[in-house]
Structures are given as C-alpha cells and as structure tokens.
C-alpha cells in the first residue's frame, strides 16, 4: 500500500519534471550556482549551528525534521525562519512561506508572527490532517519556498521521501515539526537534519540536540529573554 502511494507521488513528480516549466527553470538556476543558497534564521548562534564549509544558515533543498514538544517555545525558532524568509532578511530576497498545521486548536496568533518580522502578505496558513496528500500541489509548485508541516504524528516513510524529493527538486526548505522527541531508532534517512528541541525543567533555555546530520548540541536562551527580538520595521 505504502509503495503504491510512493509510486504515485514520485510518478507525479516525474510527469511534472518532464512537462512543467517550474522544474526546468529552477533546475537550471540552481544547479548552475556552485554555492549552496542558504536561508538564515536571524539568530547568529542558530545560523552558525547549521554552518558548513561554505556559509551559515539552512540550505534550500533541505528536508529538516524536528521533534518539538508542543508548547515548549521551540516553534518560535521556526517562526524566525519564516520571518527571515518572508521579510527578505536573509540575502535580501523575499520568499513565500506556507505553514501547514494538523492542529485545529489553538489557532495561530498572527500578530506574534508579524512582531517577529514575518510579512503576513507572503505567509499562508493551511489546516490539514493529511498534509502531504492534501497539499501535494503546493509541494509540487515552486511558489512556496519554505514549507513547515506542524504535525503531531509522524509522517509515513514514503511521505518523507516525497518531501525530500520536492525539497531538492524545487529548492525548498521543508520542515516537519513533530510533537514527540525524535529517536535515532526511527530512522528517517530522507531528512538531511533531524533535531530535537526541548526545554530542560525549570530552565529558561532551549536545547537543540541533533539526531542526524549535525554533531554538537546548541543551547539558546529562550524566547522572551533572547536579545534578537526587535520590532519589525
């Protein structure tokens, strides 16, 4: 069953690649660029956390899986990513972002996103319990360059493969945020990075622990003490 679904999704991509204008144009644009295009969070420590030999930030074309127990403040890091993308903070170019949530309640509070610098004109929210199948057209389109799937339950392995292919093909950053912490045992090889974000008891810090792709742990002072918060222009 899973393999059938995967075959359908991948065949969709092949058809699109063969006939669509998006993949052709994008593939040329991005493969000709020797340096990886990256998006910065706007938080120096976090950008350096993803630093490789070339530069800081998260590279377009990446599938990132994060274990963030709901309510610990870790999604604020993703809101920073969205803000950086929509405001053109990173590299001066503005990107459309899509935040897909499987959670009906509580709903998003847009003023807080705007206060972090997000441009609400370039940000869309969708609600779906089956994000990959319902929003498939959005993954197979190059409009939204940053897509966050805030999904309490783990996605299927073939869905991860599909997302990773979409990220690579359309040079998107796709983030899957789960409510449970990730374990090395539930191996998801499709994701370039797998990270856990958690808050130690009685401490106002966020600890980012890599499960895959990175090697060191990062400790960030939590949201309401962070010096990087500022009023959006």
């Amino acid at each position, binding site marked *: 069953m899973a393999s059938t679904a995967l075959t359908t999704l991948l065949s969709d991509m092949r058809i699109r690649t063969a006939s669509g204008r998006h993949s052709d144009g994008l593939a040329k644009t991005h493969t000709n660029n020797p340096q990886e295009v990256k998006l910065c969070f706007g938080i120096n420590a976090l950008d350096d956390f993803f630093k490789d030999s070339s530069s800081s930030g998260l590279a377009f074309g990446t599938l990132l899986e994060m274990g963030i127990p709901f309510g*610990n403040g870790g999604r604020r890091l993703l809101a920073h990513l969205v803000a950086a993308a929509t405001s053109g903070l990173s590299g001066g170019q503005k990107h459309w972002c899509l935040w897909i949530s499987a959670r009906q309640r509580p709903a998003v509070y847009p*003023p*807080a996103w705007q206060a972090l610098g997000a441009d609400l004109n370039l*940000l869309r929210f969708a609600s779906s319990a089956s994000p990959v199948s319902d929003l498939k057209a959005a993954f197979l389109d190059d409009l939204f360059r940053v897509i966050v799937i805030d999904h309490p339950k783990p996605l299927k392995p073939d869905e991860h493969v599909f997302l990773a292919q979409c990220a690579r093909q359309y040079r998107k950053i796709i983030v899957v945020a789960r409510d449970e912490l990730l374990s090395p045992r539930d191996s998801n090889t499709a994701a370039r990075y797998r990270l856990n974000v958690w808050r130690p*008891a009685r401490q106002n810090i966020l600890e980012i622990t890599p499960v895959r792709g990175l090697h060191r742990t990062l400790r960030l002072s939590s949201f309401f003490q962070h010096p990087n918060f500022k009023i959006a222009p």
Partner: protein
Amino acid sequence: MKSTPSFISALSGASSPGRFVAIRADAPDGGPLLGITPKVSRWSDSIYLLDLAPVRQYWSHVAEEQGVSLTEYLSSVLKELFTSDTPVTMAEHPWQALLLLSMTTERGTLNFVDAQTHLGRRLLQDITWDQWIERCRELREALVSTSGKKSGTDSLGSLSSLAKTINRMQFSHIRQMADIDAPAMQRRFGKLAAMAWEWTWPSSRKKETSVPRQNSLIKDESCDSLFTDAFPWDNILPKDLPSVSRHIETPLRQWDHIEPLLCEDFDNICNLTCWSSHERVVSLEWVLSFSCSPSLRIPVLFRHPHALHRESGQHKTALLQAFHSWKNATASRLKTEAPGDTYIDDDSITGWTVTIRERLVITPQVQSIFRDDLSSEASQLCRLENSLPVPLTRYAMTDHWTPEKSFAAFSQGTPTDSSKTISFDSVAKLAASQRRPLFIYDKPQPLTDRHQSSGLIFCERVGTSWWSEHLPANTSSEAGPCRDYYIRMTDDGPLQWVFKASHSGPDTPDNSPLMLHGVFG
C-alpha cells in the same frame, strides 16, 4: 486605476467592504454585472443586487495588484461600465444596500457609499419612516414573486398598522426607534417588519428567544447562507448553461478511469458555442448516474474564477477540484448510507452530466475594462488555491487592541492594511506581540492543567471592551475592565499564556481564576 476620483470620495473610513452591492442602472438580464459576479439579482426595473462572496478573494487580488482597495477598484470598474453618477451602495446585507441606495438616489450628490463608512452609517440613521415602509412594501412584493404564491405572505403582518402607529407617535426617522429590538417589532407589527428591522439594525437581535433563526444576518462568506435567510434573492441566470452529458457503456468506479473521460468532457464544454473563451468558471455541477442508486449531485467549486479554455487538453485544475469534490461526496454518501443499502459500495457510474452553473460572463464591453491580468506570482497563487482541497488562509492585522480581535483572516473581508500606515498604536501592538504566543485559543478557557507550575511571569495588562461585550454567565471570570497576562511556566509541560481578570487596583487581592489564552508553540 490608482487615482481615487471624487466618485469614490465617500469611501474613506471603510475598513472592510460590504459583501453586497446595490446599483441603479440599466442592465437588462444582468448585462455587464454578470462579468463581476455570477450572483446578480434583479430587485426592480432598474435596481440590481450583486453578491460578491464567490469572487471577493479574486477581485481582492486584482485590486491589490492595482494598488487600490477592493471597494475603490469596484467603484472604478462600475464607473467605467456605466456612468460616473450611477448610484452604487455596498453593505453586509442586501437590505442595507437597498436602503442606502434609496438615500443616495434622493440626495443626488452621492454616487458610491459603503454602509461601513461613517457616511454610510449616518445615512442609514437618516432614513425616514416613509422610505423604510416603502422599501418594506417592495420587500413584500419581492417575497410574493419569489415564493410564487400569496398565501404564505399573509402571516407577514400589516405595514399599515406600523404606518398608523408611526403617524400617531409623530416619528419621522427610523433612528428614533433604534432601541426597539426585532422580537418586539414582530409582536406589534408582524414578521415582515421584524425581518426588515433586524436587517436594518443587526444589533436589534439582542434577544434570540422569539426571532426566527432564518432571519439571522449573514456573517459568513457561504453563498448558500443567503438562501436560508428569508431575503428574496432571485439569481439571474445566463441564457444558456453550457452542459455536456455522457453515457458510459462500461460502468466505472475508479477515478483513474473517470479522469480521462471527464477531461474529454471539459474539452467538449470548451467547444460549445454558447459561451466564449474569455469567460471564467466559478462553479460546475457534476451529476453522476449510477446503475442501481439515485444520481449524485456534486458541486465543483473554484476559489477563484477559473479560465477553463486556458487548460484545454489537460484541465489539471478542474480535474483536481473535481477529484476532491468526488472524494468528499463519495465519502459522505457512504456515511449516510441506509442500513439496507449495501449496494452503494458495489455501485458503478453509468453516466454523468457536467454543467457550468456559475460563470463570469465577460462581454466585449466588460473585457475592455477588466484588467485582470495578475502578476505571475498572484496568478500562480490563484491557480494553486484552485487546485487544493483546503484553503490557504491569509491573516492581516486589525485596529482592535484585544488579542483575539487584533487580527482577521483575509477571506472574512479585507482587514485594515497595517503596512500602509504604521501608527503609534501599531508599533506599540507589535512591541506587545513580541511577548505573546504564536498560538492562541479563540475563546479563553479556564485553566485545568495537571502540570505543576513553577511560576508566573507578568507580561502586560490589556483592557477589555467591557462596555460593549455581552459575555455569557459561565465566562464571567474573563469579564472585567482589564486582564493581567502572565507566562505560566510548568516543569515538564507547555509554556502557557494565561490571564486573570482584574476587577480592581493592583493592591487589592484578586481571587479570579487563571484563564488559558495561548500556548508558546
């Protein structure tokens, strides 16, 4: 298009344009009005009503591209379609739009008035009883003509008794009785007066005990809600509805088999001569016939008017929407299956009819005026939204200071664009929002949390609009002149955004319970 001539000078102050437009114009059979929205109703010989709900988002995109508001864009288009002195009004209810239209016609100097502007509200208050009763008589006639029989309207009550009472009391303007609520009107003057009164003064529906629910003011964007309302809306339909039928010799059940045939039928529809290639489809009706069960009517709706001809041969967008609609309709059909109807599972499709129910009729006159060629990103977004089974929601800030009312979904209207003018209040609101959570509950709820709190951190004090809000008794704990917001840290649970209703000064002990309002993602 970017200029705002005197024609639209009465628009200033409108934060969100009304859903309905009333226009006094010569437009037989709808004419160019059917190029703006497929929902056009004829009220009298020269008065037409337009429902913008099915196309509001699309025209908002177009207006945004032109750098003007939706209201300004529509007024410019109507000015070019008709004459600059054509009276046009906008309101959230067609009845209000009609009342405003009678006022603007009488005054003569006003051409385009939105009921949500200061001027619009003032004009509504200036309506005289004579005007109001006259409109009510028209309403009675419209109800008779749409229902097609007179017997049902006897229960509507007598307008002459209302006129006599008003004469006896020597009232001239309807605002003099604005305090009267709709149930009271119904008791004294009948259902018709109560309905019209409630549409005129939405706040008159204070007591919901005796007012029939079908009279409720339209709040949502659902096109069908109007038709559950008692308002006599009689849609003008284009002369020919493009339609194709198919009889299937080998019955089908699976989408993979249905899809190519349906694509072929969309091509067949494109080839029909009864509509032009410029026209945009707003909704289709796909009626499936089965071998052993009744036919199934599947509405296929597009979020933005869709150019069917542009996708000839592929019809990717229409097929995706048809697939989502088919999937939902099949699932709900199986859900509602009667216990003995086990045949539905094995039932096969033996034929279908595809009809274009609603479309924007782009006549040459309209075509020359509409500059609906969106930028590549906007048209890409429209195309994508048309392909998805779930809507993409856009939010914008509003001018309200309470957290739950400080934003609005774009689909619920066009909220104030805070990016145009950043006032001191906007900056202050942004500064406050930095300490607020990414997720909030639409209604605060009592905190019932098993996690042990390790402390409350005070954030801010927010005033409530206690003078205008009618809170139910069971939420009295959130009522009060202000709320003191805190971040509640728990040992192993979420970071919560909670508040206590503050009834008194900071030195007075307050035992109000904590209310949960948000979670810091």
